[in-house]
């Protein structure tokens, strides 16, 4: 009897293993009392591109870290190619044919491409033999890379290619990609999808982590939806609409934000910059060229571009952190402001919220009400005199932001660093919007923010524009730019493109613009 059951289970294994690559069974992982993964079961077939879909904190990253051996599960089992699988570390996982491409690329900037690839391969040296193997592999998958270049000189797409080559060199049967398109241009994204499809045609399985619904619908065969550490559903994304997927993912109503009415073009801009060349604060940043752009009252201007193409300098110029020599090169309602510093610009109604939430936009170790003083001190009587703070006023203002902008936090006395990304962003945007800006400059406001907070921020920016203010949105997120801006331009290698009406833009057009190719229209 005993022998029979064992035979049965063996037979089951054989039949399962013929199709299944990885089986995850009842996996749980706790950090203290917090369940990052709760009884998760997932099955991934050979040659399948399988999406793990969920918001930040849904447990996607924890799950793949367990599969890749970075974390150990508290409960549950895994089966890889029909055999029990429990990696003790990433090296162990690699030896079983599991490879991973990280979201924040695990590359070493000051080292060459060859050295970076060697580091991901157990026991390999960055020598000529390895170089030849890499060249052979790159030809096979039509990937382009220069082995002798330093990674610090590469674009985000090229860095990702380094990671992918590093993983492919291990001849993996299961490939994990964590949010791989967050820093890619549309063209780079298409190239990546082509590579992934080629890999899946060879029978390799791919786990594709994302919260971008459109991508998953285009690329993936199946999707496992995670929410709060548990599996909600397993679906065929091709049979779903973006809306139905989105609602399953966030567990609530999902509405795509759209502008209702586009303001009419105005001849007198609210803010305009005219500068042929802007030299940045450090040698590392790019020199900005041909910055001729203006934004009308009630309008949202988008500045697209992959990060590192001059966005920081442009933001600094707009906010006043970098002052221009010629005051006339920047006009706010006809008034020259090019040489004014941040505070003077704020007093005139030009407010800004930088990309770096912790450290640039606020001091992480200060409380929320203290952070209010940093930018909003000249409003609402927060300063009693030049040197004295009216604490009660600051706290009132912080409380008002928390109420109006739906910030989830314990109190105004919470440290800024204790808030989640989405809640802190809502607070920081609220701090500026309640200051009634004439012009609001904001950089990557929804980077690393969950879908609900993202919708909220978009809604607030639109509301602000509809109330008559101008908004300048510097962003890497193409979907965001196309959804809420009226006019759009792009930064590539410090060069600012012409401005186009968003209504006439397609993602392909915008991608070309981000790569420095001018488009007509």
């Amino acid at each position, binding site marked *: 009897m005993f022998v029979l059951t064992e035979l049965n289970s063996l037979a089951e294994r054989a039949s399962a293993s013929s199709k299944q690559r990885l089986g995850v069974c009842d996996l749980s992982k706790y950090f203290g009392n917090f369940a990052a993964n709760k009884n998760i079961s997932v099955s991934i077939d050979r040659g399948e591109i399988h999406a793990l879909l969920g918001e930040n904190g849904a447990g996607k990253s924890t799950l793949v870290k367990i599969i890749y051996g970075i974390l150990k599960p508290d409960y549950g089992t895994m089966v890889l190619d029909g055999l029990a699988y429990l990696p003790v570390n990433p090296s162990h996982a690699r030896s079983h044919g599991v490879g991973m491409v990280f979201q924040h690329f*695990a590359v*070493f900037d000051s080292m060459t491409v060859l050295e970076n690839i*060697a580091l991901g391969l157990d026991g390999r040296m960055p020598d000529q033999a390895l170089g030849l193997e890499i060249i052979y592999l790159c030809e096979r998958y039509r990937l382009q890379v220069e082995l002798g270049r330093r990674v610090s000189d590469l674009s985000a797409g090229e860095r990702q290619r380094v990671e992918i080559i590093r993983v492919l060199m291990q001849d993996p049967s299961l490939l994990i990609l964590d949010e791989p398109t967050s820093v890619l241009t549309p063209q780079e994204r298409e190239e990546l999808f082509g590579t992934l499809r080629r890999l899946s045609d060879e029978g390799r399985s791919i786990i594709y982590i994302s919260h971008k619904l459109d991508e998953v619908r285009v690329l993936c065969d199946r999707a496992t939806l995670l929410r709060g550490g548990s599996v909600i559903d397993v679906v065929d994304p091709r049979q779903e609409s973006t809306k139905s997927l989105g609602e399953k993912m966030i567990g609530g109503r999902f509405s795509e934000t759209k502008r209702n009415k586009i303001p009419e073009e105005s001849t007198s801009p609210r803010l305009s910059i005219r500068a042929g060349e802007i030299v940045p604060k450090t040698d590392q940043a790019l020199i900005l060229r041909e910055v001729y752009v203006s934004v009308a009252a009630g309008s949202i201007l988008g500045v697209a571009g992959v990060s590192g193409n001059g966005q920081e300098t442009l933001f600094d110029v707009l906010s006043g952190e970098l002052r221009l020599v010629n005051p006339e090169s920047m006009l706010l309602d006809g008034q020259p402001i090019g040489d004014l510093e941040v505070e003077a610009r704020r007093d005139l109604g030009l407010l800004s919220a930088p990309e770096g939430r912790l450290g640039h936009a606020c001091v992480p170790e200060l409380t929320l009400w203290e952070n209010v003083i940093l930018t909003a001190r000249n409003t609402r009587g927060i300063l009693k005199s030049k040197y004295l703070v009216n604490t009660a006023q600051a706290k009132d203002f912080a409380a008002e932001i928390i109420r109006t902008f739906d910030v989830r936090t314990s109190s105004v006395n919470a440290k800024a660093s204790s808030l989640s990304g989405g809640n802190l962003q809502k607070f920081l945007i609220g701090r500026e919007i309640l200051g009634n800006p004439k012009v609001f400059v904001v950089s990557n406001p929804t980077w690393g923010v969950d879908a609900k907070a993202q919708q909220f921020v978009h809604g607030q920016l639109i509301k602000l524009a509809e109330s008559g203010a101008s908004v300048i949105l510097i962003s890497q997120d193409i979907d965001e730019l196309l959804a809420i801006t009226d006019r759009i331009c792009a930064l590539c290698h410090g060069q600012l493109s012409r401005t186009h009406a968003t209504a006439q833009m397609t993602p392909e057009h915008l991608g070309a613009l981000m790569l420095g190719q001018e488009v007509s229209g």
Partner: protein
Amino acid sequence: MDMILLSAIVHAILVASTPLVFAGLGALIQERAGVLNLGIEGLMIVGALAGFVVALSGQPLLVSVLAAAMAGALLASLFGFLVLRCLANPIASGLALTLFGLGLSALAGAQYVGLSAPQVAVWHIPLLSNIPFVGKAFFSHDPLVYGSILAATVVWWFLMRSRPGLVLRAVGENHDSAHALGFSVRGIRFLAILAGGGLAGIGGAYLTLIQTPLFVEGMTAGRGWIALALVVFASWRPFRVIAGAYLFGCVTIVQLHSQAFGVSIPSQILSMLPYLATILVLVFISWRSKGKGSVGPSSLGKTFKISH
């Protein structure tokens, strides 16, 4: 100036530089792994005392040097425990290590003050040491002078030509990426701290075994700090540490001999010279790399925490 005097000066420069070469290499290997250890001075003087005590007991040079290395590594392991395991602030821990080392060596070494270490035999390199001038200046030294150059070669080969060295540099460059690839950041850093502590200990032992050869409280006299500056001067490259150490040794010896040549500058100013030179060189390096950011390991001095 006659040739004999000049060759003696060159000889003296090499002797004065050797402790800095060892200590500089010790700091370099730790910093390449991303560990900023300001305790080099403390490691040196503890090594100095340990080597001296073992030498007094009649052990051969090799054993004394090994004892110094072990003492340095042992004290460094305390630093490693604090910084890597307890996640203590590395700046404060390093300063504490220096003060602790100076105090510990003064206490334990009080009974040895005034004693003299046995003379160390000089290795005359066959043939080469017979060349006039060059032979006396470069090829008639104690074994440790040659050992310091060998050590720099080994450190260079390890860092630039071996896989463990590649991994060590990767850990210093970006510890989060290294962790994600599955390298043990703390393990590698701990080994680097041990190796660095050992080298700093040998640097200290050179003072008590060969250069003076006595033990006096606080006798490292700031050499640990110079060694740290040398690493920046050398842009974290082993052979440039030798070059920097010899430059510093040169200024030290020249100021000693300048009075003999009849240069009448107050001795206090002269003894400031090596340190002034260090400051000038560091200012020059920062000025030259202005805006390009640091050329050092990117994760240097940053505390590594495993995040989920």
